[in-house]
């Protein structure tokens, strides 16, 4: 439900959303260039989609945007917990409601009349991307500091496994972002809400 001011997204949500979007774009594009230096899946990502120009430049972008993501993520998470938005917006989520809403979505009957209310598909998608981001950050820490974080390294199956985990978590995030953008295109009011707050 929208609060008293008619605000759908408070200012901190909008600011952290766009800062996060910037950090993720830089991290993904520079990360693709880093992947291209030693592609382990038999394909490379076209150079014009990548950031940094060469491996050293890409690493500099990646490890600069890392701090932006971390600082912004902490603000976002703390605000979500303190304001209890995390629990109000994304919980509860039951399999039954998720199933019902997925069916409704395919029938084109899922309503977006109230942008302040997330349906079960949205809740699942946002919870997925939150958990996926945690996996991305943790596997990234292992790649950066595999010797200094031994527990994390072993939890993620060692350095080489962590590389794969990091890549597939990125793929999950990029897939989310793609669907997210399609949904925004279908319901453009959501973009205005994320810019103006209402």
């Amino acid at each position, binding site marked *: 439900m929208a609060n008293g001011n008619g605000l759908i997204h408070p200012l901190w949500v909008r600011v952290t959303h766009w800062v996060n979007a910037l950090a993720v774009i830089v991290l993904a594009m520079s990360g693709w260039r880093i992947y291209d230096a030693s592609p382990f899946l038999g394909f490379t990502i076209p150079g014009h989609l990548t950031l940094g*120009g060469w491996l*050293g430049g890409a*690493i500099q972008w990646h490890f600069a945007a890392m701090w932006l993501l971390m600082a912004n993520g902490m603000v976002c998470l703390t605000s979500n917990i303190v304001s209890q938005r995390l629990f109000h917006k994304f919980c509860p989520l039951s399999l039954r409601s998720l199933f019902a809403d997925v069916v409704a979505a395919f029938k084109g009957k899922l309503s977006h009349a109230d942008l302040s209310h997330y349906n079960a598909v949205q809740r699942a998608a946002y919870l997925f991307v939150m958990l996926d981001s945690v996996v991305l950050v943790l596997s990234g820490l292992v790649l950066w500091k595999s010797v*200094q974080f031994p527990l994390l390294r072993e939890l993620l199956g060692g350095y080489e496994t962590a590389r794969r985990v990091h890549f597939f978590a990125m793929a999950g995030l990029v897939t989310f972002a793609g669907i997210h953008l399609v949904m925004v295109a279908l319901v453009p009011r959501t973009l205005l809400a994320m810019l103006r707050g209402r």
Partner: protein
Amino acid sequence: MMIKKPSQQFATNGEELIKNALKDLGHHIEQPTRRAFLQRSLSLGGLSLLSGCAVVDEESVENALMKVSRFNDKVQAWLFDPNRLAPTYPESMITRPFPFNAYYGEDEIREVAEESYRLEVSGMVADKRTWTLAELRAMPQMAQVTRHICVEGWSAIGKWGGVSFADFLRRVGADTSAKYVGFKCADDYYTSIDMPTALHPQTLLTLTYDDQPLPPRYGFPMKLRMPTKLGYKNPKYIQAIFVTNTYPGGYWEDQGYNWFGGS
């Protein structure tokens, strides 16, 4: 609008003056490489991100990224635990063949002659004499099987043996309160490391690979092996070692790779 103050206005003594002059000189010498790096780093993708933002020019972006990289050096030095060991592996897990890696191709591998080889030791050390390979082999030897992680992302497990670098530094009376240990190599490679990593128990001045004398492709006569650092920080074909407080940089580091390069 910000007015940049000259940062080196007052040199307090002669040493400082020389240091500053060298720093200035280094800056100028560095320019061609820096330009190349600049073009490479921003020619693709980078500018589209900044379009519409005319105030931000390429050079200031590059400088900002370099500053973050220097900050990341500090964070890594802080995270580095001198007692934390890199994992070791059974010999059955050694990657065969272990990949060759350098800034040039395999057809350009340098062959160093053992008879005329002398390791030079200089800088902040008590004993500046040169070393023969026989003398290094006479020191206590140790070996370990560790994972080499390349900055490109790939990794490979190998077995290196040789002299504990901490033992060697103590033997030559190195000032272990100095900031850096630098290396100059027969293949014109150069790099430098922080003193805490130099003194790490797994940092080896290696003379063997897989129990055989280090072959030319892996850096004969000697390679510094640090399982706590990325591959490009591990110099091969070492000819000279020096201890210093003046930042020595490195072949890749001067082009933009992170200096600490720790893992």
